[in-house]
């Protein structure tokens, strides 16, 4: 339930009232604060009586309005200052409200698998068609996932710590000379996790520099 405020000059949800104040379409001095507070308390009681959860946004908006008005009453500021105080308090809230609006607009779009449906996915087209591979949107979470999965599968021998045997630069050049490589291949040619890690870092460097391109087909990552 939206709490609807009824005033001589206004009837509607509180967020609308706040919006109008922000837009200067209603004068904050004209708003009978005690009436809003009363209606607000009635709303709170009604919510509690029905065992409903209080809408925290409402609470927030009511307090913003009260804060706004009390500040203006105490300071008896100039027109300009009034304006300033008003927007100082309401601007962030209006920002927030507009994102709420944006969210509901997104939700009213034709959402996939709710309102509209594509053909049922069978085999991924990449598995069947040669020549079109979907470019992976480089995503740290997925790359880390892929790395972890391969480490699990990778070499299990004990690691002895010794001066670095491999450098990112060296692996970078090696990968660069290749036209295409599978992440899985890198794991299998690596003698230990360290080497694989260096490969992986070189790979990221390639992509970072825009030389490499990562594509996905199934669960595999490829470098072109």
């Amino acid at each position, binding site marked *: 339930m939206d709490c609807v405020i009824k005033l001589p000059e206004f009837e509607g949800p509180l967020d609308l009232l706040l919006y109008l104040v922000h837009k200067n379409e209603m004068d904050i001095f004209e708003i009978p604060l005690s009436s809003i507070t009363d209606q607000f308390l009635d709303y709170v009681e009604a919510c509690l009586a029905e065992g409903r959860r209080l809408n925290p946004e409402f609470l927030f908006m009511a307090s913003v309005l009260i804060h706004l008005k009390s500040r203006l009453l105490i300071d008896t500021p100039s027109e300009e200052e009034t304006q300033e105080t008003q927007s100082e308090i309401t601007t*962030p809230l*209006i*920002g*927030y*409200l*507009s*994102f*709420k*609006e*944006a*969210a*509901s*607009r*997104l*939700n009213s*779009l*034709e*959402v*996939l*698998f*709710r*309102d*509209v*449906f*594509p*053909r049922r*996915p*069978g*085999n*991924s*087209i990449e598995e069947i*068609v040669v*020549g*079109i591979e*979907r470019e992976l*949107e*480089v*995503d*740290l*979470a997925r790359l880390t996932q892929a790395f972890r999965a391969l480490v699990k599968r990778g070499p299990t021998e004990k690691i002895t710590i010794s001066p670095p045997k491999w450098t990112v630069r060296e692996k970078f050049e090696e990968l660069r000379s290749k036209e295409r490589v599978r992440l899985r291949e890198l794991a299998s040619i690596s003698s230990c996790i360290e080497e694989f890690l260096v490969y992986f870092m070189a790979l990221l460097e390639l992509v970072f520099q825009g030389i490499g391109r990562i594509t996905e087909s199934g669960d595999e990552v490829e470098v072109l």
Partner: protein
Amino acid sequence: MTSTRSQRLELIVEAILFFSDRPLSIKELEEILQEHTYGEIKEAVLSLKKGYEAMNRSFLLVEVAGGFQFRTREEFSVFIQRLYRSSPYRLSEAALETLAIIAYRQPISKGEIEELRGVDVSHILKVLLEKGLVRVAGRKEVPGRPLLYGTTKRFLEVFGLKDINHLPQIEELAPPSGEIHSPKGEDGGKGH
């Protein structure tokens, strides 16, 4: 291009798009159909799209996420849902709001989102990342170099948007820095 050749191309494009499990862009079609030019393919796709609209069937060829995909019309969703076992796409209100903030203000850091939302968004952000709707889009060059978030192609697919410039227009969310341009073209007025 002779008319039989262009009709034939339209059928070829139809077959490929019918078979594809995701939106295909004209550029991708061009890679498969090397004997045809980009312009010819584009013409074929658009003619096919118009054709389906005119036929008034239960599905349409929709331009989404930079590509084209056959999708059922919205009015039949109820019936498909009876068949489609997994639960429809659902996001909590909080997640949707966070997603909206990211969509309209990308690239944006977690701190900036929290400033707007007034609450911690770590968990929601994780959910959105896992669902593939949001991605890490870089780092902000300020002390601490916080991660910046943006929306993905999947986001466009899920919300049926041609591209990020086709977000519904919201007066108060006019881009401050011009990162998101106002929609151009025929459905530019959709957001009003």
